[in-house]
């Protein structure tokens, strides 16, 4: 799993992602997937999904948790320090500046419009990532998983089932399916 990675590049890329990613933890994951998996090939598709599940099951912000686990996977402890620092630096700087000019910032018409239309761009990025990941689940031809994916989507989107509940549910399901399959092999 030792891959040639550059800590300088890791820092710069994480800094860019953290600075420009509006819309929460899952957007960050999408951006990291595009950069570190699709473009640089420092991690695989499966690893991205595994690490997201793990990051989601720990307390704390998803963006920070995923920066930590991605950093560890790509560059060990040094990778963790580099990617975590790059993730928290932009919010510290931006909020420090904005809390002094809050009124001018929050009532500025142009900023409001920009933030609103930007959602369309952010949504396009996430949808592109989701399509890529969804295709891979379909390619496994494990139709139970395809159905479970659709069910989980409906549960999360329509019924607002929390992420942590879904993760735990699928964890139990994975354990159950493992033992069922093992029994079948032995029989």
């Amino acid at each position: 799993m030792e891959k040639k990675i550059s800590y300088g590049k890791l820092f710069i890329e994480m800094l860019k992602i953290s600075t420009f990613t509006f819309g929460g933890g899952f957007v960050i994951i999408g951006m990291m997937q595009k950069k570190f998996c699709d473009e640089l090939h420092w991690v695989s598709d499966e690893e991205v999904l595994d690490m997201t599940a793990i990051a989601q099951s720990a307390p704390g912000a998803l963006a920070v948790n995923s920066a930590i686990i991605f950093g560890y996977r790509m560059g060990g402890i040094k990778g963790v320090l580099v990617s975590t620092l790059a993730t928290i630096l932009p919010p510290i700087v931006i909020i420090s500046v904005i809390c002094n000019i809050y009124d001018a910032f929050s009532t500025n018409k142009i900023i409001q419009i920009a933030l609103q239309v930007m959602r369309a761009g952010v949504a396009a990025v996430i949808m592109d990532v989701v399509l890529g990941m969804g295709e891979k689940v379909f390619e496994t031809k494990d139709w139970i998983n395809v159905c479970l994916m659709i069910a989980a989507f409906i549960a999360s989107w329509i019924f607002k089932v929390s992420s942590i509940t879904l993760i735990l549910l699928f964890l139990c399901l994975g354990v159950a399916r493992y033992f069922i399959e093992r029994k079948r092999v032995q029989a």
Partner: protein
Amino acid sequence: MIYLQLFFVYLQIGAFAFGGGYAAMPLIQSLVVEGKGWLTMAEFADLTTIAEMTPGPIAVNSATFVGQKMAGLPGAVICTLGCILPSLIIVLILAYLYTKFSNLDIVKKVLGQMRPAVVAMIASAGMGILLMGLFGTSVFAKIQFSSLRLIELCVFIVCFILLRCKKAGPIQIIFLSAVVGTILYCVL
């Protein structure tokens, strides 16, 4: 000692905010606003607005906001460190275990089973943002077709095509959508 107090309050927020994002808000409210009185309710409302208008996780944003207000830049740094320390410890342990045991059959199977759920959660987050962008609400039942925003729809379609077909970079796309969208709004 204000620094120690700031650190420990944010340590708690970092350790007990499961589920990220808005899950941290009630915790921040009870500890920082009601418990310590470091923020007034009005400032807390401002903080929520700022957190929505800026990149970065809400917990980290609030750490900087509160730390800055109570003890300047050192306060901001201390709050942020307190906030991410539990994550660092817990996620590092999990990351170590993942690297060590990801070749075990049962671990492979369980992680493989969790992948469809992760894709579904990202898709759900994406749908929320998409609806918020196109209709101004992320609640499915409240959507009215007449409130569809055409500029956002065009921006979304163009961005999506650029990403899928031209393999455009995501940061460039987000930047482009903000600039072009704002210009369109101002011109039309």
